């Protein structure tokens, strides 16, 4: 009897499996088609930037200027390829008019920016624009604003940021400024001044006279102040510079030398190095009370601290292990651990605004490098190299780096030009920033909006 039950059970299992397989097969045969796209083209996005028109629907000088600035910004990022306006079949007349996309499809562009700039009351210029998706024929975004005569460039940068964000998903960095050290004169009597400019080199302005030597300027999170090292009476100390008023102020009064300042992301604290009694350690300062708090305790030199975007960790460089390497610690100075282990020496670490990587200067085999690594020290990539490349600083979106590069000196003492460069974190699109004189120690501002 038991055998019979077992036999029937087996029979049942076999039959049910058979029918289940049959149902599965019938389900599979009715399944929808699916295609997997994992490869694509790495190419700049083709885009058409039409000259902005005035109230009569005609192209004005201001309209041309705005379109040119936007076009230059997008092209300089390396992610866009603006089409020459001469190739346009029928230039649009106004943003309110829906473009005839059959005139734009042959150009192979993905986006079309149409805008107008009209003079309003009080010398203001009213600017409006629409960004169109040429392929689907739908508007991606539109906005309007106004600017005075001096604000044309800035509003154009803001429109470029707008377009950049709509196609990349990252915040734009065109409406930002850069503070740097402008250098002039011979090497023996070098004049170093603070200077500020737009990220594209325009609107250049000197902030200090050059009477004192200045180094390592850093923006506050609001971009209204600059912390920097100032050799006043040959005594190096950290100072604060207010951009709007030009007022300066020494941060704290300590025996010893303070340098390498950097603001906390919240803006209420500042970290820096303090050299005291033959030891250089990292301290944090409360910006309201100017009280300081020591974070590292070592007989070695701990310097170049930089906060993580969330303000919970600090990366710095130290020679406590015998050579200059990168270390990460908690914001209260605990849990210090080394993160760089590759050959060479590491300096000037800067935490990315994205929080996932750290940029640094590396010295190895007689060369200087600008590189990036993950926060645990893995995945090191070197982006630029030269006789002297140093001082990386991040764009607010964490996709572009700026640094300075010095050329080697010739035997007759000539050479040694120093320029600020910009590079994509992919290692491509290295571009020099035009400055009136030699430039070093750049610091990129946060987004100004």
């Amino acid at each position, binding site marked *: 009897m038991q055998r019979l039950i077992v036999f029937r*059970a087996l029979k049942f299992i076999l039959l049910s499996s058979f029918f289940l397989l049959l149902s599965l097969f*019938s389900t599979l045969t009715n399944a*929808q088609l699916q*295609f997997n*796209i994992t*490869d*694509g*083209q790495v190419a700049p*996005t083709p885009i058409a930037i039409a000259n902005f028109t005035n109230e009569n629907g005609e192209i004005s000088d201001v309209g041309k200027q705005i379109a040119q600035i936007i076009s230059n910004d997008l092209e300089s990022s390396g992610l866009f390829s603006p089409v020459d306006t001469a190739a346009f079949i029928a230039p649009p007349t106004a943003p309110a008019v829906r473009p005839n996309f059959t005139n734009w499809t042959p150009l192979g562009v993905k986006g079309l920016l149409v805008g107008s700039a009209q003079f309003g009351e009080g010398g203001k210029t009213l600017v409006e624009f629409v960004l169109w998706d040429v392929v689907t024929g739908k508007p991606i975004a539109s906005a309007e604003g106004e600017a005075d005569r001096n604000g044309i460039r800035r509003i154009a940068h803001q429109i470029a940021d707008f377009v950049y964000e*709509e196609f990349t998903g990252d915040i734009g960095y065109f409406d930002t400024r850069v503070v740097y050290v402008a250098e002039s004169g011979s090497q023996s009597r070098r004049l170093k001044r603070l200077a500020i400019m737009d990220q594209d080199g325009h609107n250049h302005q000197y902030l200090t006279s050059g009477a004192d030597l200045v180094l390592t300027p850093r923006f506050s999170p609001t971009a209204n102040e600059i912390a920097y090292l100032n050799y006043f009476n040959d005594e190096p100390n950290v100072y604060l510079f207010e951009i709007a008023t030009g007022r300066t102020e020494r941060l704290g009064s300590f025996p010893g030398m303070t340098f390498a300042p950097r603001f906390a992301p919240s803006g209420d604290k500042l970290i820096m190095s303090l050299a005291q009694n033959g030891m250089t350690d990292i301290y944090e300062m409360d910006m309201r009370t100017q009280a300081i708090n020591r974070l590292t305790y070592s007989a070695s030199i701990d310097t170049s601290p930089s906060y993580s975007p969330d303000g919970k960790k600090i990366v710095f460089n130290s020679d406590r292990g015998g050579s200059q390497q990168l270390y990460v610690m908690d914001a209260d100075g605990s849990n210090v651990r080394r993160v760089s282990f590759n050959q060479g020496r590491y300096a000037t670490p800067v935490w990315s605004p994205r929080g996932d990587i750290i940029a640094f200067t590396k010295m190895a085999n007689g060369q200087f490098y600008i590189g990036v690594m993950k926060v645990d020290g893995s995945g090191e990539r070197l982006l630029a190299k030269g006789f002297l490349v140093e001082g990386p600083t991040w764009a607010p979106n964490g996709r572009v780096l700026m640094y300075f590069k010095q050329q080697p000196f010739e035997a007759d003492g000539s050479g040694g030009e120093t320029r600020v460069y910009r590079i994509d974190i992919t290692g491509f699109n290295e571009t020099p920033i035009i400055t009136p004189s030699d430039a070093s120690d750049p610091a990129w501002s946060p987004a100004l909006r």
Partner: protein
Amino acid sequence: MDRRSLIISLGLHVSIALLALIGLPSIKRDLPVEQPIVVMEIVQSVPTTNLKEGDKPNTAKQEQKASRTKKPPPPAPPRAKPPAPKPPKTKPRIEASDPEAEILPQKVAPKSKPKPEIVKPPAPPKAKPRQAAKQKAPKRLPQTPPKRINKLVQKKALQKKRADALSGVMQNLVKAKAVSEDAEKKRRQKERKEAAEKLTSNLTAAAGNAIRATKKPVIGPIGLSEKAIVEQHVSKFWSPPAGLSNDGGLIVDIILSIDAKGNVLLAEVDESFGSASNKRRRIMVEEAIRTIYKASPLPLPLDKAELWVGKETVFKFDPSKFVQ
């Protein structure tokens, strides 16, 4: 114990029956209605067609053929050829014997070979029918005993008389029979011709459809190489934003409606795999939709259109290779 096993057995059988009902949807369907058998005559010669699959029949040619077939006799099959030279021989006989025979068609003559044997011919041709009769007679003669020759002669004379008397009746019967048989044959031939014409026209008209109909069930799934061609084609148009960060939600599923020629009719994101509220994801979605429209028409195997027409096709865009 027996009852338990009976219950188990019943339960198992019921579950099997249920599984069969669920697993085999075709079991619920009605059987196809049996079509009545259509009897068709086999036509020996059917004109061949040059029509290809899907071609429309050329009615002009058919009309021409029809007009040709009406006037002259149709191209006779090889078997019908040999009798053709005979009519000249039979014609004079029929004319001589009976003027009514003129009604008969020429073709019938060769087939009615034995009939002239019975018909009384004029003197010179008489020998032939007799000879023909003699050829049949030997089969009967051996049956009669040789002793009764006189009686036989008498009987023969009587038979001759009867035969002479009957010959007129028979002649008429034969004539009538020949006429009716010929008419029947003519009618049949006409019917065959008509049937052949109908069949050929039906065949030429339905040739393409018939071929297609036989091919339908052969359609299989899209092959790997066919799939790869489509994926490579779409990849040429896809340029995901450079420098993507791995913050998740970047894989995008786009659902397409595609027509039989591979044109994209509609492309929209499948939100069941993540919301487009995230800005980077929204941009990925927009780029994927742009890519699909730019890549249209898709190089799909058009002979398998029923695999996608009226159904949803999914394109999964995965930018993992582009994430930094």
